[in-house]
């Protein structure tokens, strides 16, 4: 996956619908086009469908209807072999962190780079750099299970950006953070975005997108409230 902007958007979602058994509509007819290098905020109340939308984008879930394309690849038709490569290029910070409690902070962050077969020296250097940026350097060898929720959240963010992915998906990345830590996390995301990484942040924390110049899209009961010009134009071009 390339981080350079091209004519093709990095994410193209067309009329995606996701229904959880038996009849819980998580997303309904959602269409969205996100170009390379954009930073975008997805807002909405709990249960609005933000997490489901992120899961569709990273291929953990599949839509019941509609199309989800990432970097020009239809995630419903992508070959099993290609999935790991795609996921290596997507850094996801999960709402429930998904950290390994019995591993150290450094090992948890390093995992994202290990699966991409980065060498140990590079991993060590990058882990230290990220821990410094998130003011967690003193927790380098601490077990992830012994950290506070806020610290775990920052570790999850560090792991998401560790491999310098082309796309970062962050699900409520500041939900457990105080204002200082929130600023550190948002600065890190902005820095990644400046380098060309596409960043999508799902949040209901208004403080992080209040004065932003970036797009802010709102989800309500599984529907996108506003469609911007870019998405409408993409929809019109669909067969």
């Amino acid at each position, binding site marked *: 996956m390339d981080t350079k902007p091209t004519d093709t958007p990095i994410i193209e979602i067309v009329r995606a619908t996701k229904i959880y058994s038996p009849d819980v509509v998580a997303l309904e007819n959602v269409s969205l086009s996100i170009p390379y290098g954009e930073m975008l905020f997805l807002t909405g109340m709990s249960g609005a469908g933000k997490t489901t939308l992120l899961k569709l984008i990273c291929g953990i879930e599949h839509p019941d209807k509609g199309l989800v394309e990432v970097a020009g690849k239809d995630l419903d038709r992508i070959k099993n072999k290609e999935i790991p*490569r795609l996921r290596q290029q997507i850094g*996801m910070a999960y709402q429930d962190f998904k950290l390994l409690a019995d591993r150290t902070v450094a090992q948890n962050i390093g*995992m994202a780079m290990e*699966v991409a*077969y980065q060498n*140990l020296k590079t991993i060590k250097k990058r882990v230290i750099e990220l821990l410094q940026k998130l003011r967690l350097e003193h927790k380098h060898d601490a077990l992830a299970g012994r950290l506070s929720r806020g610290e775990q959240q920052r570790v999850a963010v560090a792991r998401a950006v560790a491999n310098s992915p082309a796309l970062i998906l962050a699900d409520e990345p500041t939900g457990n953070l105080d204002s200082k830590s929130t600023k550190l996390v948002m600065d890190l995301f902005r820095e990644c975005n400046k380098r060309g990484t596409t960043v999508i942040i799902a949040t209901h924390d208004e403080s992080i997108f209040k004065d932003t110049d970036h797009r802010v899209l709102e989800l309500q009961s599984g529907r996108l409230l506003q469609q911007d010009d870019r998405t409408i134009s993409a929809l019109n071009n669909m067969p």
Partner: protein
Amino acid sequence: MKFINTIVVQTGRNLQKTWPSQFMTLLTVSLSVLIFSFFFLIYTNMINTGEKLGDDLRLTIYLEEEPVLEMQAQLVKKITNFSPVEEIRFTSRQEAYDSLAKQLGENVDVLDDLDPSFLPPSIEVYPKKNLSTLAEIKKFSEYLTTLPGAIKVQYGQEWVERFNYFTKLLRAIVILSGILLIMTTTFMVAYTIRLAVLARQAELEILRLLGATNNYIRTPFLIEGFLQGVFGSSLGLLALYFLYRWIKLNFTGPGILQLVNFTFFTPAIMAIIIFASVVLCIGGSFSSMRKFMRI
């Protein structure tokens, strides 16, 4: 190189976390190899001894009368027509008497009152090596009894038959212990890997989400299977070697072991046993992963 480094680190980490179950599997593999190899070692030695005995095998035909030269030539022709032989030796009554007297040594006086012609003349037939199975020997012996003037044919029937049955029994034990080895090795390794997979379910799930390839997830488990095979079988063979040395040291007196030239496996056979164990262990590991990891 990066792949190898990463996989080595990952394998080391796995072994560190699951060493108690890994150790138990290692012992099970060793024990299975030891049981199988023990019977296999005895079997191969019995086969070697059988071959050696086959080399010394001779059939003695006792005759009613001493054959004249013309008759001797006829008998030789009849015998060699049925089966090629290494050697045919005629023994007259007098030669048989002299031989017995020689064997009796100091006790030769027991023959004083006996007629020197009381022993029957005989023919000793030394068959070729290809005449090795019991059925072939029996068939040959039956044919020799039909020769003109033959009274009886002897070749140590009882001993050869007992030896043959014992070899057959050993072969069955070797096959059974081989099956035991296959089953225990495959199942134990599969079970250990299954436990490791289940214990690390959460980790494997996260690894998949982070983009770990099947090779990244699978290879450390295969290496674990490989290591179980190499070290398990080597340990089993080492234990067998010590057992072999102990047997050699403690049973060197007269007896069966003097007859049997008790030898250990050749390096080639040891390599085959280790290789088979490695294949079984990797197979067990692979089957477990297919079942529980859906990859």
